[in-house]
C-alpha cells in the first residue's frame, strides 16, 4: 500500500468548483482517497498551485509523426525551448532524447510529464496501420494514452450510409474500434480522403464523394448517429472540410449547425470540432484573408451541443501532419516544401509537410491571433480544449508560452507590436482585453477533456479519481499572470511535482520515474445477428480489395500496453 499526502496545496479543480483553495490531497494505491494513515509520504505543497494532471485531447504523438521524424532529421537537433526540446543524453533514469516538433517516443513522455500532463489522445489512427500507433504508444513512457480511429473516407462506412443501413454501420464502427483498439470516431475532411485517391478533393458539405454517391454531410450525420447508437464515451471528433482555406469559417459553422439535431446518448457534447483555428478563416483568397473567429465564436456562444479545440499557432518551425491528404499536397506546392503522402487502401489518406510560422507573415500572424480570439471570444471555457494540434500549430512544449497569451493582454500586446499593419487590420485580437485566470485555464487543459471524453477519473481531483496530479511552483494570488507572465511560463514549464497514478514521476522539473502508462480502448457491444451480417460484408472487402487478411488486420492483445477496456452497450 503506497500512500502520499499532499499538504496545504493551493487547489484548482473546476470539476468540484474549487478555485485555488488551500487543501490536502490524500492518495492511496494510485487513487485519490478521503484520508491516509500517518505513514503516508508527505509532499509539502504550501504556496503551490495544484491541479489534476493535464490531458491533451488532440495531439499527434504516435503513427504518422514517424513520417514527420523521418523526413525532418533536422528537427532532432532543434532546441528552441531549452529543457523541453533538442538533444538530451541518456541518464540512469531516462533514455536519450531528441527533437522539437517530432521528438522521439521517450522525449514525448518525459516532456509532457514535465508540463504536468499525464494523459494524451492521439487524434488519428488509420485502421490498417493501427498496430504501428500502438507500437509507438508502448514506447512513450509515463503517459496514459488513447487514440481516435479514422472513419471519414472509409468505403464500408460510405456504402452503409449510401445504402441506408445504420445498424450495420454501427456494427462496423464497433468492429473498427476493436480492430484498431481505438477510443473514438475521428472524421477528417469527410469524403475528401476518398476524392484524394484520385487526386481530387471535396469542396464542402454537399459536394458528392466521387464514385460513392454520398456527401460529406451524410457521412458526418451517419457517423454521429452510429456513435450515439453505440453510446461511445466520446462524440464524433471532426476535422471539417475546407481546412486551411480562406472563407472556410462558413463551412465550419454549417458543420456545427448540422449537429443541432443530433441527440447525445451520454452526458457530453454531440460534436467535437477540432483545431478550429485552421477552420475559422474569412476572406475569399490569401490576399483578402482575415479572421473568421468572431463569427465562429458567435455561433458557439449560442450553441450547447459542441466542444472544440484551438489548434493554436506557435511562431517558429512546425510540422504539419494530417489525414487530410489534399491539404498537405496544396501546402507543399504553395510553400515549395517537401511532401510526404500516405493513402491507405479503402480507408483514408494522409500527408506530412514541414512549415515555418513567421510573425512577419501577415497570414501567420493572423493565424496566431485566430486561435487566441477563439479562446477569448467564446465565453464558456467548458466548450474549449486548449491545443496546438501538436505539432501542426506548433509543438506541445510551447503550451506554457501559449498560456501566457491567454492570461495576459500585456503579453499579447508585446507579440502583436511586432505585426505589420496589414496583419493588424485582419484580426480582432488587439481589441480583446479578456484575461483567463487559473481556474479557466484548468478547465481548458483538464476538465473539458474529462467531460468530453467521459473519463470521470481523469482531469479532476475528486475522491476516487486517478492520482494524476500536477503541482506548480506558483501561488495564485501572489503571482499576477497578467503582468508576471515570465513566472507563469517558468512554473508551467517544469512542474514542481507530477504524479502519475500516485507515483512521483517529476520532481523539481526533472524526471524521477518512468512507469508505463495505460491504453484506453472502447469495446462497443453489438447484437450478434447484426454483427454477423456486417462481418459478411467486410469478409468480401478483405477477400477482394484489402492486401492483408482480416485475421492479420486486428491489432493483437500483445500490442496493447496495460489495456483498459471501456465497454459500452449499444442501442439497437
Amino acid at each position, binding site marked *: 500500500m503506497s500512500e502520499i499526502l499532499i499538504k496545504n496545496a493551493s487547489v484548482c479543480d473546476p470539476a468540484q468548483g474549487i478555485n485555488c483553495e488551500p487543501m490536502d490531497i490524500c492518495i492511496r494505491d494510485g487513487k485519490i482517497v478521503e484520508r491516509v494513515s500517518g505513514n503516508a509520504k508527505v509532499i509539502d505543497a504550501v504556496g503551490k498551485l495544484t491541479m489534476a494532471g493535464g490531458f491533451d485531447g488532440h495531439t499527434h504523438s504516435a503513427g504518422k509523426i514517424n513520417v514527420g521524424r523521418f*523526413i525532418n532529421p533536422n528537427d532532432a537537433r532543434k532546441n528552441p525551448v531549452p529543457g523541453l526540446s533538442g538533444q538530451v543524453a*541518456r541518464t540512469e533514469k531516462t533514455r536519450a532524447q*531528441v527533437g522539437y516538433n517530432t521528438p522521439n517516443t521517450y522525449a514525448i513522455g518525459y516532456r509532457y510529464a514535465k508540463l504536468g500532463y499525464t494523459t494524451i489522445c492521439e487524434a488519428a489512427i488509420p485502421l490498417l496501420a493501427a498496430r504501428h500507433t500502438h*507500437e509507438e504508444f508502448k514506447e512513450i513512457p509515463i503517459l496514459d494514452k488513447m487514440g481516435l480511429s479514422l472513419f471519414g473516407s472509409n468505403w464500408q462506412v460510405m456504402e452503409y450510409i449510401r445504402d441506408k443501413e445504420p445498424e450495420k454501420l454501427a456494427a462496423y464502427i464497433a468492429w473498427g474500434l476493436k480492430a484498431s483498439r481505438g477510443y473514438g470516431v475521428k472524421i477528417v475532411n469527410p469524403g475528401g480522403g476518398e476524392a484524394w485517391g484520385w487526386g481530387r478533393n471535396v469542396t464542402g458539405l454537399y459536394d458528392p464523394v466521387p464514385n460513392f454517391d454520398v456527401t460529406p454531410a451524410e457521412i458526418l450525420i451517419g457517423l454521429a448517429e452510429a456513435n450515439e447508437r453505440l453510446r461511445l464515451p466520446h462524440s464524433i471528433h471532426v476535422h471539417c472540410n475546407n481546412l486551411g482555406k480562406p472563407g472556410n469559417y462558413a463551412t465550419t459553422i454549417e458543420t456545427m449547425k448540422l449537429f443541432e439535431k443530433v441527440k447525445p446518448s451520454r452526458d457530453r457534447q454531440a460534436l467535437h470540432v477540432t483545431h478550429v483555428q485552421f477552420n475559422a478563416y474569412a476572406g475569399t483568397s490569401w490576399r483578402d484573408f482575415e479572421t473568421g473567429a468572431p463569427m465562429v465564436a458567435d455561433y458557439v456562444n449560442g450553441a450547447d451541443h459542441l466542444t472544440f479545440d484551438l489548434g493554436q499557432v506557435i511562431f517558429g518551425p512546425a510540422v504539419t501532419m494530417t489525414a487530410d491528404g489534399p491539404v498537405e499536397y496544396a501546402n507543399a506546392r504553395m510553400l515549395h516544401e*517537401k511532401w*510526404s*503522402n500516405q493513402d491507405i487502401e479503402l480507408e483514408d489518406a494522409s500527408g506530412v509537410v514541414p512549415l515555418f510560422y513567421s510573425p512577419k507573415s501577415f497570414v501567420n500572424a493572423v493565424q496566431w491571433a485566430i486561435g487566441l480570439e477563439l479562446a477569448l471570444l467564446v465565453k464558456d471555457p467548458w466548450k474549449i480544449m486548449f491545443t496546438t494540434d501538436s505539432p501542426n500549430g506548433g509543438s506541445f512544449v510551447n503550451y506554457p508560452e501559449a498560456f501566457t497569451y491567454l492570461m495576459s493582454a500585456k503579453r499579447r500586446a508585446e507579440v502583436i507590436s511586432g505585426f505589420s499593419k496589414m496583419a493588424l487590420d485582419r484580426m480582432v485580437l488587439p481589441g480583446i482585453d479578456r484575461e483567463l485566470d487559473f481556474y479557466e485555464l484548468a478547465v481548458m487543459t483538464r476538465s473539458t477533456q474529462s467531460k468530453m471524453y467521459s473519463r470521470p477519473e481523469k482531469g479532476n481531483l475528486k475522491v476516487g479519481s486517478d492520482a494524476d496530479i500536477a503541482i506548480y511552483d506558483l501561488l495564485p494570488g501572489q503571482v499576477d499572470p497578467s503582468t508576471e507572465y515570465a513566472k507563469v511560463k517558468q512554473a508551467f514549464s517544469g512542474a514542481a511535482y507530477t504524479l502519475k497514478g500516485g507515483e512521483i514521476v517529476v520532481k523539481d522539473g526533472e524526471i524521477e520515474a518512468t512507469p508505463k502508462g495505460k491504453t484506453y480502448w472502447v469495446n462497443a457491444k453489438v447484437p450478434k445477428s447484426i454483427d454477423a451480417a456486417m462481418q459478411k460484408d467486410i469478409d468480401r472487402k478483405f477477400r477482394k480489395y484489402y492486401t492483408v487478411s482480416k485475421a*492479420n488486420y486486428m491489432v493483437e492483445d500483445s500490442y496493447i500496453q496495460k489495456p483498459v477496456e471501456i465497454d459500452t452497450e449499444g442501442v439497437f
Partner: protein
Amino acid sequence: MPVIKDAVCSLCGSLCDDITVTVEDNKITKIENACILGHSKFVGMFEHDRIETPMIRKDGELVPVSYEEAIEAAAKILVNSRRILSYGWCSTSCEAVSGAIELAEETGSVIDSTANVCHGPSALAAQEKGSPSASLGEIKNRADVIVFWGCNPVHAHPRHMSRYSSFSKGFFTEKGRKGRTMVVIDVRKTDTAKLADNYVEIEQGSDLLLITALRSIVNGHEDVVPETVAGVPKAEVLELAETLKNAKFVCIFFGMGVTQSRSKYKNGDAVSSLISDLNQHTKAVMIGMRGHYNVTGFGQVATWETGFPMAIDFARGYPYYNPGETGANDLLVREEPDAAIIAAADPGAHFPQKAVRHLAKIPVIQIDPYANPTTEIADVVIPSAIVGIEAEGTAYRMDAISLRMKKLIDTRFKTDEEIVKDLTAKVRELKRGA
C-alpha cells in the same frame, strides 16, 4: 495436425500474409501460397546449415559453448570496447530491433541497418523531398499505370505483381493486367521487362537524366529535352511522359537499380519531385521495393526511438546522425570500430573488401540462425530462432504496413529479442561490477 492460416512470409518486403502452413510433429510438412523464395525459406530451415549451438573462437577455432557462456563472452567484448558497430537487424523482428537500439544506447555504439547498402539513399531522398506514397492496396485497387524502375520483382518479389500490382484485380481495376499499362525502366531486359507493355532501356547510371527530362516535359518544357536522353530517343521519352500524365493513377516502384546507381539519393529525390509534379495532372505515388522482409521495420523503429532511420551514433549519449560519416561502411573503411555485433545480416559477403578486412581484425559477435561468410570472422557466434517460423514478432511491409509474424513451430533456439535482452542485462551487470 495443426494447419495455420494467414501466416506471414518472412522473406521479402512483400510480406505476403496469406500463407497456409501445415505442421506435423513440430515440422512444417506443407506450405501453400508461398512463392518459390518463400517456400524455400519455410523448408530451408531444415535443409540449410543451421548454426547448431553457440560458439566462441578459441585458438582460431569456433568451439561449442552454452548460451550463457556465449552471452557472457559477447558482453565482455562490448564492455571492453570503445567504438562498437552494431549492424544488420533487417531480417528480424521490430522487437529485436528495439532491444538492439537499447543495447547500442547502453554501450554508446553506432547502430546501422542493411539499408546502408540498399535503400539508405531512398531515406536521404525522403529527407530532401519527402515521400508521396500509399499502401499497396491503393495500387491494387486504383493504379492503371505501374512503373518498375530499376527493380526486378519477377525474381526479387515473386508475388508482388499478382498480389499488389500488375496482375492484381481491385475495385476500380477489375480487369487486372488487361486494364493496366506496365512500364519497366532498366538497363537490361529483365524477366520483369519481358512482361511490360513498354520497356525503356536506359544507359547505366543515367536515371537522373531521364527523370529530369520527364519532369521537364510534365511541366511543359519539352523544348529543353535533347534528341536522346539516357540513351532513349526523345520520342520515347515524350510518349512515356504522356502515359504518366494521362494515367488515372500512377505508381512508380523503384529498386536498387535507382538507389545504388550513379547519383544515388539524388535519383530518389528526383522521383519524388516527379511524383509531386505529376499530381498536378493525375494521381501519382511512389514505393521503394524493399528487399529484406523487415528492413522497413528497422527504419520505423529506429525513427521513433532515436529520431533517425539508420546510421545512428550514440557516442555522445544522444543519437547523432550523419550518414556518410556514421554509416556502417563509413566506420569500417576508416578502421574506426574496435568491435562489432552483426545480426541477421552478412557483411562478410556484401561489404566492400576494405570494410571486411577491418571486420576481420576486430572482435565480432554474430547473431544469426545460419552460418554465412561473416561466421568465418566471428569470435562469438550466437544462433537464434527464425522469426515468422520459430518466433513471433512485428515486421513492416515495404509500404510501412506492419504485420504480426507468427510462431509456427517450437525451437530450442533463443529468439533475437531474448538474446539482445540477455546481452543488455549482462553488459549492465558487468558495468556495475567494474
